[in-house]
């Protein structure tokens, strides 16, 4: 492990921002710290950077405990949420600042700054001030400034939050490419699931000052371990008593179940449905054209489910009674989540 946090605790007054946090990060990886606002993800980032001090626990980088090393000596690059560019310095001076305080010689500074300006594609903007730049350009400057002293670790706090939606998409792939090319270990904080899944090699999911789960985006998406991660991705529906849906085995002490839209198959009464015997009836309450698909809200008893249908399937209208079949769902027992498959799927495979 290149970066390791061991039993980190941090409180701000009564608010517990980090509750016994432990995790490790391999060298060269791009890690996303994902969680809702107030979940303590930014605090973790700031503690690694040295901007906050943990109440207890150890932070280890490259085998060394760095708790008592001042922020300025940690060799970490930090990209602030609002970039924190020096407003009274030009783009060139901003990028050169970290090198100048190290008293590097003028020539090598100039070489490095020019190299970085080329890297982030800001040629010709050296003499501009931050107020004369667009959001995306500011982020590129902040990125270059953080990279200038060749840090071993790059931390980014909500790197895309201050940029409008259209440019954001473009910057995401740009940043991922850049970090991949440079091979610098990086951690970024975000509250946006799509962004996290798209950009990160690995995710660390935080909630209420605790870590819910770590793993690759795919792993976490497919095998959520906790109730929180199970419900965090996508437009999930919550079912109180899932046994009303047929052919699910009963789990002891189950509190509720969570279903993603892609776990649900909605069919018209007349349509072919292999598992009709295991389906239940529901009434369509709302249909919404979503561009690539149609989103349906279906009521089954007192449960409201969100599901999707492809555009080439026969149209279903509001008020229609339909068959609802659920392939699989996440059953939560206390805080833990567990995936269970519909039994009829298994019977089916035996039959075939």
């Amino acid at each position, binding site marked *: 492990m290149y970066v390791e946090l061991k039993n980190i605790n941090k409180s701000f007054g009564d608010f517990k921002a980090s509750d016994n946090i432990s995790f490790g990060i391999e060298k060269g990886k791009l890690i996303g710290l994902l969680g809702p606002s107030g979940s303590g993800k930014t605090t973790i980032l700031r503690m690694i950077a040295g901007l906050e*001090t943990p109440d207890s626990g150890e932070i280890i980088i490259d085998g060394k405990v760095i708790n008592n090393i*001042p922020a300025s000596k940690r060799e970490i690059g930090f990209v602030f949420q609002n970039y924190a560019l020096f407003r009274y310095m030009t783009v060139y001076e901003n990028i050169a600042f970290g090198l100048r305080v190290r008293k590097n010689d003028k020539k090598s500074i100039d070489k490095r700054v020019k190299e970085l300006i080329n890297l982030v594609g800001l040629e010709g903007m050296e003499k501009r001030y931050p107020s004369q730049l667009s959001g995306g350009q500011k982020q590129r400057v902040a990125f270059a400034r953080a990279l200038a002293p060749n840090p071993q670790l790059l931390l980014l706090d909500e790197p895309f939050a201050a940029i409008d939606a259209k440019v954001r998409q473009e910057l995401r792939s740009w940043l991922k490419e850049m970090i991949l090319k440079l091979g610098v270990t990086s951690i970024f904080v975000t509250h946006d699931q799509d962004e996290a899944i798209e950009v990160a090699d690995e995710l660390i999911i935080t909630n209420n000052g605790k870590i819910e789960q770590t793993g690759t985006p795919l792993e976490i998406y497919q095998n959520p371990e906790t109730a929180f991660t199970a419900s965090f991705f996508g437009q999930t529906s919550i079912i109180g008593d899932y046994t009303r849906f047929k052919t699910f085995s009963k789990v002891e002490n189950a509190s509720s179940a969570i279903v993603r839209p892609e776990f649900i198959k909605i069919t018209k009464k007349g349509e072919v449905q292999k598992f009709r015997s295991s389906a239940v009836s529901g009434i369509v309450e709302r249909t919404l054209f979503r561009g690539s698909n149609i989103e349906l809200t279906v009521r089954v008893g007192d449960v409201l489910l969100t599901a999707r249908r492809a555009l080439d399937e026969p149209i279903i209208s509001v008020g229609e009674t339909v068959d609802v079949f659920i392939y699989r769902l996440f059953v939560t027992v206390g805080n833990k989540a567990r995936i269970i498959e519909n039994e009829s799927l298994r019977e089916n495979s035996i039959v075939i």
Partner: protein
Amino acid sequence: MKKAKSKRVIPGFGLSLGVTLSILSIVVLIPLVSLVIYTAQMDLGDIIETITRPRVLASFKVSFLTALTASLINAVMGVILAWVLVRYQFPGKRILDGMIELPFALPTAVAGISLTALTTDTGLIGSVFDKIGIKIAYTKIGITVALIFIGIPFVVRAVQPILEKLDSSYEEAAGMLGANRKKIFRKIILPEIFPAALTGFGLALGRCIGEYGSVVFIAGNMPYETEITPLIIMSELQEYDYASATAIALVMLIFSFAILFAVNLAQARNSRIINGGSK
């Protein structure tokens, strides 16, 4: 557990706080403490005897009434001046704007003798009013005039930034909805600037109550009639009666802290309404 002493990232905390507290102690804290120590040694009976002397009580009345009148006039004039400076274009506007600050820049003693010379019954203004039987210098009116001079920038400078920030789209929206100008002013603009005007009024009142330099010359300093409290303190000091001076000063201090407190309260309420939340 290791020591949980929080390291600060930005350097210079110890040095800056150290210098700040040292200078603060020498200039403000130690003198205040010596006032407290001196007061603690005084007899409560003596204090009450001092501050209930008829001449002292009369001075409280003079000081308070003139300061209140002047500040009320300033509140109205201050809002008008701020309005004119923010909303209208006219020749000489920049000079007028700069002149508002004159009472801050002009030494009070100079203002005092100048206003006195203007308002005595042989002065430029005083002679005009003398013909209709009104005397300004050496009366309470004179004191009030001096205090209006001293207090005017407080209200203007409190109201001006609020008016500048006031988005004219509010007024346009109200105008579209059919409100007439009078109504727009009463319902939209006045509520916005009222807290600021109140703050300015409070600051002016606090300053006027304690004002000395500009008033002593124009007041005439007749006991019971035109003798202000700071002047009584001054004469006690000249007679080396520090105990009486301190007793009277305490009353003034309590009063000015009460005003300060009220102003802060109004400001806090105001910013809560504008910014929302508990901040």
